């Protein structure tokens, strides 16, 4: 199994190439960010086939609306992950998706529930395990909800039963913690 060599560019180079609509920019974009984006998408949309569709829609949208991206306003990934998260949330809130879930076979539901309960060992989440240790449980839950479940902070406050102000503080503390961890 010969692993394909992944293309990697600096963010500035990549942005320039994308603006010039170069073919290599698409490949580089995919190689550099598909796994990070798919990590977010696949936690919101648990069904693999649909999550893959959302990833494709995400790249199509990034490619088509790239002129809307302004490097002065923020990093490329921040812009892209918001597109991915919004598409994923749109998908799970769509009528089709809800109907599809209603009609799921019992067999499928067993694995679906298992996935939801995290009783199955998922090697892809191995890295998170270490990281989670750096976050306190209440910080972790808010980051999980907002970053990986696509909740707004208002919805998260409702879900966790804490005031909006507390949610904002906790979210800030959690991200401070992550900053410390990554630097």
């Amino acid at each position, binding site marked *: 199994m010969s692993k394909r060599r992944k293309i990697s560019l600096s963010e500035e180079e990549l942005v320039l190439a994308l603006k010039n609509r170069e073919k290599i920019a698409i490949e580089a974009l995919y190689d550099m960010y598909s796994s990070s984006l798919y990590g977010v998408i696949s936690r919101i949309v648990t069904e693999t086939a649909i999550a*893959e569709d959302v990833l494709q829609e995400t790249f199509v949208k990034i490619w088509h609306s790239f002129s809307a991206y302004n490097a002065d306003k923020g990093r490329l990934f921040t812009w892209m992950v918001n597109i991915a998260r919004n598409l994923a949330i749109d998908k799970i809130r769509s009528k089709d998706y809800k109907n599809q879930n209603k009609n799921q076979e019992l067999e499928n539901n067993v694995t679906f529930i298992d996935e939801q309960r995290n009783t199955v060992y998922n090697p892809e989440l191995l890295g998170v395990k270490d990281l989670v240790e750096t976050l306190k449980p209440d910080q972790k839950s808010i980051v999980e909800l907002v970053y990986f479940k696509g909740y707004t902070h208002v919805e998260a406050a409702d879900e966790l039963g804490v005031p909006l102000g507390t949610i904002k503080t906790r*979210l800030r503390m959690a991200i401070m913690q992550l900053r410390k961890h990554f630097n």
Partner: protein
Amino acid sequence: MEDIKAYIESGILELYVLGDVSPAEKLQVEEMAAKHPAVKAELDEIERSMEAYAKENAVEPAEHLRDRILNSLVTNLADDATFDKAPQSSAAKIVAMAPQKTNNFYKYAFAACLALLLASVAALISTYNKLQDSNTQIASLQSSNSQFAKTVSLKNGELEVYQDASFKFIKLQGMPKDPHAQMTVAWSPARKKVWIDLHSLNMPANDNAHQYQLWALVGKNPVSLGVFDKTADTSGMKEMQPTAYADAFAVTLEPHGGSKTPTMDQMMVIGKF
């Protein structure tokens, strides 16, 4: 600078990076970042850490997905190269036309329905009128038919008088009151039938207060055989009351409805066997 610090600590920058702000808040954050390098630096830090966090949580998509997605983008790339930006605007025009089309369809459908309705109503009205005409015709035909039937049965009766050999015809002659008066009576003693011929009747028309009365004289006794009228258009024959015996027939002018005994001085005609 205190304001900036409080702004940073409010948590709005984190929400901005997570895409969880209103459009107004978004503009405000972007304005603040452009104005204050400290805000911009903080934003950058948050973005980098979230990006690193996402990388930690990365899930490698299936290998086959790469070709599928890249191909779909390259197809789009080719389209973009071929048509530049024109296809988008023309596509937008087509979208705008579509609802117009459906609107027109319903307009035409409605107009067609209306026209059909009017045509049906017109057809219905004319059919109804024809039906009314037919009904009137049937009614008049029926009444004339029954008139015919009546006439035919009457004529049959009259014809019988001439065909039946038992009938005797007696000419009644005028009396001194009106010497020119004349009348014909047909009598069948066997069948006891008495008819008078109104057509050949030659007597003045009676007024409303009087009627002519026919008598059969049996021996010396007069027997009433009923009354009749003479008007300008009297025609045909009239059947009178039956009698088996008669020596003579006579007609007198009597008050309306007839009398029990004949008024002898009002005798018009008489005829004997």
